[in-house]
């Protein structure tokens, strides 16, 4: 059962402490719980637990090979870095919270207006907003400056839509006196807080003296949600219903689940493998060490092994080796990966070649952790409208009662025939234009100069209204329920009675009007052909319209059918009460309303078909062609109709035209039909698999539903076989389902879209890309990457994705390489030191080696480019390498493993042979081996680097210089081997010889 809350308006005593106050808190920590909570979070990662265990073991002096500082130091450093980052983020959140919380707002207390801090607002308080104020919490409107009770809000912060939206006060408060608003009392019944910003199904009842016994339904239209701005309205007031973190905005703020890239998963697997290897080494050496101890070491009187050891004696040597080998898993890998990943993201943000010059929008990587995946994409699922196309709608053609306009010129607005019809006042055309101008939710805004601009949520509507205005039917003003239309300087007024809003299920919207002159009640509808044409009044010929729709779709135009009918008074009254009732239900309101709408929307008098052009974005066909050459498969998922979708698909290189390409269509309304179609398509696919032919399947939403439900196995096979697919008439959830399907076949998917209907698909996919386009920022918000234009996708994948993958592949394997190198040397050394677990290297060297000498040069590898950007763009096939994961997989890793083993043998062999006998002093030998490692790793980085920039030279050679400088300084302190460096310098060429020997 749904929970509810009752809000008592303006009551200072009742039920106020039931709900939280309006203090916004986005903070994860407080000062007191920061340390424990952050530590707990960090230690919930397996890797950190491992390092902690190692660090704790090192505190036992009997087994630690080196000073515990060598592990504690880096561990604390790494923890401090991530804790500091968290703390900074949290502090910033705290600051912005504080700013929001301490903002001063006017509220009513004990009937008096008072200025208080936003955080002190309680549920039930009446809050006053002035123009351009931001709503401090979710409010239900009570009154506005407008006598008709409307106000305008900007919801950009909430859903990214920049147009103004109308909000009205509930009918119960209509016409209330300004003074009375201070004293208003009542109760609002509303659902428990949720995060749905499109719905608010509540009821309101006012108490005497505001007698209005009816329960007044409230919708989202009666609310101003937190973070919205009041615009174009002098003031508005409302009652706080949700406050603090319980507002719609607060509830929808969630921490999204972190996405794991394929590379990360591979690194985790490799880490696991290394861990197993380490355990094996420890066990083998531990046993060998114990055996050696018992057979040999007992005879070595100078070691003074006691004959009887403590109970844990057997464990001592294995544990020592565990500690010696613990460096096999590089402690720095996570930190350096995080670091370079954020740099990849920064490169994307900075990229001047991915700036939309029209709007100045830069590309932005919201998710900084998944750049490598961009280079491994196999499937791209793309939305059509606004993604491939510009979403800049232009009214091009129309067909009104049998005659088509704009066929010759391609633009109905300049068609002689149309102009003539308008000037002669042909009734059909007039009615058509009226519907175009009125049947919408557009808000006309008159600027001081008298020019009218339109604010619309739907680009289609805006295009229609603009076109109507050009044909002299100007939608001039909308004040409250009255709509002014100016035709040829004569004013026509309508009263809007109801708006039956557009839903993606009904695929149409309608408006109920009352003609102010004649008093007639009219229904005007517009919608997709299949949701309008079947509901034509009996006897009307719809064939011409259907043909026109077909013809326009062939041209890749979007079609809308316009229709109207007159309503009888009784019919309307009866329906209106049903509609009201449906609108005030709390449960399943959406469904009930849709049902009621259906009852009115039938028996249409079809007026005509409007065709709207949506041009392809620049560079879309080239981008798709390049990416398809790079082995990426494209699926187009659109809500448009089949013929339009196919047309667009052809024009943007999705499929080659006829002889080379082939389209296989799956449709059908019944299971049998779909099944038969599916079988047929599968058969063709299997046969065609051998020949290089461009085959794509086309499926519509209805057939898809059936296929996914009953024939998911066959459909999955089809999905795997087919490189291209066009899915039309699909719903947002089907889009997400398709992503899920491909993901379940282990494909890397990228979903790209621009509108709210793509959000689910974007969130579902491995990588979500949002186009920050005209349908608002909703998709871009939800996405991992937002770009300004579709064509930037090419650069995003081929340049940024590919480089990121290459760089991370090198960096991660290199991290293991250098750790293994030093570890192998330690292991070899243990064979000549009586398998007793002596460390060849001292603590300082070990720590510096891991944290400093070897990590600095490799970090600049993020600047490496194996191939120029141009080369990659010209030969997109290069991406095959990344897709197949050829740079980071068990076999490349085995190569690095072998390399480190080989290098360790060389370094160790040369060291102990050239520093034998009288030169075999411990410190010297260790320094020689260490410098050998340093030279080798510099050499490996240099060999693996493809392009040397200044920074790379600086890091690689500077690091070598730094190594000697630091060791000189350390040696100058009268503690470690001072003369060793002198000795070593003269013998350095022998390293060179071996180094070059490795190629």
């Amino acid at each position, binding site marked *: 059962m749904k929970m509810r809350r009752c809000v008592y308006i303006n009551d200072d005593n009742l039920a106020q402490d039931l709900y939280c106050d309006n203090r916004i808190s986005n903070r994860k920590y407080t000062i007191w719980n920061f340390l424990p909570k952050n530590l707990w979070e960090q230690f919930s990662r397996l890797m950190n637990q491992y390092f902690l265990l190692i660090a704790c073991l090192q505190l036992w002096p009997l087994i630690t090979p080196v000073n515990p500082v060598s592990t504690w130091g880096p561990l604390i450093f790494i923890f401090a870095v991530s804790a500091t980052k968290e703390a900074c983020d949290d502090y910033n959140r705290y600051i912005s919270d504080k700013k929001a919380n301490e903002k001063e707002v006017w509220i009513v207390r004990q009937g008096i207006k008072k200025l208080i801090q936003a955080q002190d607002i309680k549920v039930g308080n009446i809050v006053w907003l002035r123009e351009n104020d931001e709503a401090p919490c979710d409010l239900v409107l009570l009154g506005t400056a407008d006598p008709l009770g409307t106000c305008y809000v900007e919801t950009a*912060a909430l859903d990214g839509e920049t147009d103004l939206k109308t909000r009205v006060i509930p009918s119960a408060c209509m016409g209330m006196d300004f003074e009375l608003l201070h004293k208003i009392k009542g109760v609002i019944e509303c659902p428990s807080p949720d995060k749905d910003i499109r719905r608010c199904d509540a009821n309101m009842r006012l108490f005497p003296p505001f007698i209005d016994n009816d329960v007044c339904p409230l919708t989202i239209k009666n609310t101003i949600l937190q973070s919205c701005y009041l615009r174009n309205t002098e003031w508005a007031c409302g009652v706080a219903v949700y406050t603090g973190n319980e507002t719609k905005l607060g509830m929808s703020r969630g921490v999204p689940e972190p996405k794991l890239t394929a590379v990360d998963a591979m690194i985790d697997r490799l880490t696991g493998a290394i861990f197993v290897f380490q355990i094996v080494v420890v066990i083998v050496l531990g046993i060998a060490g114990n055996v050696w101890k018992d057979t040999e070491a007992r005879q070595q009187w100078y070691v003074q092994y006691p004959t009887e050891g403590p109970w844990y004696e057997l464990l001592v040597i294995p544990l020592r080796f565990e500690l010696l080998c613990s460096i096999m898993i590089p402690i720095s890998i996570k930190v350096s990966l995080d670091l370079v990943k954020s740099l990849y993201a920064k490169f994307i943000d900075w990229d001047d070649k991915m700036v939309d010059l029209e709007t100045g929008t830069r590309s932005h990587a919201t998710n900084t952790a998944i750049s490598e995946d961009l280079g491994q994409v196999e499937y791209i699922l793309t939305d059509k409208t606004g993604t491939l196309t510009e979403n800049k709608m232009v009214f091009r053609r129309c067909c009104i009662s049998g005659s088509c306009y704009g066929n010759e010129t391609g633009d109905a607005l300049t068609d002689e025939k149309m102009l003539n019809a308008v000037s002669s006042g042909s009734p059909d055309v007039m009615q058509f234009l009226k519907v175009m101008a009125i049947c919408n939710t557009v808000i006309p805004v008159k600027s001081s100069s008298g020019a009218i601009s339109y604010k619309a949520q739907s680009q289609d509507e805006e295009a229609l209204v603009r076109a109507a205005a050009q044909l002299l039917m100007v939608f001039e003003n909308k004040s409250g329920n009255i709509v002014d239309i100016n035709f040829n300087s004569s004013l026509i007024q309508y009263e809007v009675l109801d708006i039956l809003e557009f839903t993606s299920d009904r695929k149409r919207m309608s408006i109920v009007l009352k003609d102010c002159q004649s008093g007639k009640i009219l229904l005007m509808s517009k919608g997709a052909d299949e949701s309008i044409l079947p509901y034509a009044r009996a006897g009307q010929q719809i064939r011409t319209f259907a043909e026109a729709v077909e013809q326009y779709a062939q041209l890749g135009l979007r079609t809308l059918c316009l229709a109207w009918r007159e309503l009888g008074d009784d019919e309307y009254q009866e329906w209106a009460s049903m509609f009201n009732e449906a609108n005030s239900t709390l449960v399943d309101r959406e469904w009930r309303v849709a049902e009621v709408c259906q009852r009115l929307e039938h028996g249409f008098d079809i007026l005509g078909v409007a065709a709207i052009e949506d041009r392809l974005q620049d560079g879309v066909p080239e981008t798709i062609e390049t990416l398809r050459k790079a082995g990426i498969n494209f699926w187009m998922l659109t809500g448009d109709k089949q013929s339009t979708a196919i047309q667009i698909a052809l024009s943007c290189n999705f499929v080659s035209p006829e002889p080379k390409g082939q389209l296989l269509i799956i449709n059908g309304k019944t299971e049998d039909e779909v099944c038969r179609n599916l079988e047929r398509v599968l058969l063709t696919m299997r046969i065609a698999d051998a020949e290089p032919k461009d085959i794509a399947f086309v499926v519509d939403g209805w057939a898809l539903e059936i296929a996914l439900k009953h024939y998911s196995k066959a459909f999955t096979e089809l999905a795997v076989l087919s490189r291209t697919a066009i899915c039309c008439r699909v719903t947002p959830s089907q889009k997400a389902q398709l992503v899920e399907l491909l993901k379940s076949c282990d494909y890397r998917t990228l979903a790209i879209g621009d509108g709210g209907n793509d959000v689910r698909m974007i969130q579902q996919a491995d990588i979500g890309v949002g186009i920050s386009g005209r349908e608002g920022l909703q998709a871009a918000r939800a996405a991992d990457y937002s770009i300004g234009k579709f064509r930037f996708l090419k650069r995003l994948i081929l340049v940024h994705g590919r480089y990121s993958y290459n760089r991370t592949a090198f960096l991660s394997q290199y991290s293991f390489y250098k750790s293994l190198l030093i570890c192998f040397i330690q292991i070899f050394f243990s064979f000549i030191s009586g398998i007793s677990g002596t460390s060849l290297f001292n603590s300082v060297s070990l720590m510096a080696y891991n944290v400093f000498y070897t990590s600095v040069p490799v970090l600049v590898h993020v600047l490496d480019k194996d191939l120029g950007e141009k080369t990659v763009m010209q030969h997109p096939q290069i991406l095959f390498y990344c897709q197949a994961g050829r740079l980071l997989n068990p076999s490349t890793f085995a190569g690095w493993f072998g390399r480190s083993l080989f290098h360790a043998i060389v370094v160790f062999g040369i060291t102990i042979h050239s520093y034998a006998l009288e030169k075999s002093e411990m410190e010297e030998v260790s320094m020689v081996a260490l410098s050998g490692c340093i030279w080798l790793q510099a050499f490996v980085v240099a060999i693996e680097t493809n392009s040397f920039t200044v920074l790379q030279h600086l890091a690689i050679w500077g690091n070598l210089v730094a190594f000697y400088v630091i060791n000189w300084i350390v040696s100058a302190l009268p503690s470690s081997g001072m003369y060793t460096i002198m000795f070593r310098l003269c013998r350095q060429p022998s390293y060179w010889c071996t180094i070059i020997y490795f190629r």
Partner: protein
Amino acid sequence: MSSGDGVSQSSSKKSKKPRYSRFTQQELPACKPILTPGLVISTFIFIGITFIPIGLSSLSASDAVVEIVHRYDEVCISSNANDDEAAHFARIGYIQDDRTNKTCTRTLNVPKKMKQPIFVYYQLDDFYQNHRRYVKSRSDEQYKSPENEQKTKTCEPEAFNDDRKPIVPCGLVAWSLFNDTYTISINGNTIPINKKDIAWRSDRTHKFGSNVYPKNFQTRGLIGGAKLNESIPLSEQEDLLVWMRTAALPNFRKLYGRIETDLEANDKITVVIQNNYNTYSFDGKKNLVISTTTWIGGKNDFLGKIYITVGGICLFLAIAFILVYLLKPRPLGDPAYLSWNKDPASY
């Protein structure tokens, strides 16, 4: 992320004029070395012709070293036991017995003229100075200054004597100090072995204190190696200093002293050895080494050999590449070699 700052971000994004820098655009000027055949071949040739001379000169330097190595552990304790095991135990018994006379006289032949300075080393084989238990058993702090006398925690099991007094110098390393001595004479003339300045200068000046005197050393029941003169500070006990520089390998040489006269070829050297040190329990070997040095140090062919080998391999590869290049040249950067061009059907 609260949507509040999302807005500020997007607005700042728009207002911020893209500041161009080569770094942010990843357009830093870079040199891209391509491994052309010419480059590879010339690199190999270069390596070859630099390495082989280095190798030859270090080989000849190593060759110029005159070195006398004499193993004396077995010959100095003669044993008439029949089998090896009995001999082993006989030797251990002999070396551990305080009363036996351990003097041993050996005669060595100088193969070539040896120029001074001539270094005298003792060489131990299979002696694990790098054993963890051993190498850790020392306290550098204690050796440095008399105040730190009590800092013997790391020295176990040689930290305190039987009266719980701290041992100076503590630890297994000091305790097991090598105590064989050599006296060298030619035709009855004793040749002095200079034992001054055999330890590292840094050890004498910094690592070991000049006011730290041995105390309670070798007073426990178990006696390891040499005893120390308690009136000489640690910094002047150079034998100890040399010994305390632990070796990383189980076979090692340590400097015993210097002979500052030339030795002529075919001189017969008589060495009187006090054979005190027990290497018999663990089958270790003891050698006396008398050697000259060159710039490369003592006798060590390894470096020279590896230089010559690598240089030779590089030259060989260079020649092989030249042949391949001449016989089967292929144009650089021919797109026909790209994998997807070779076999279009595979994709």
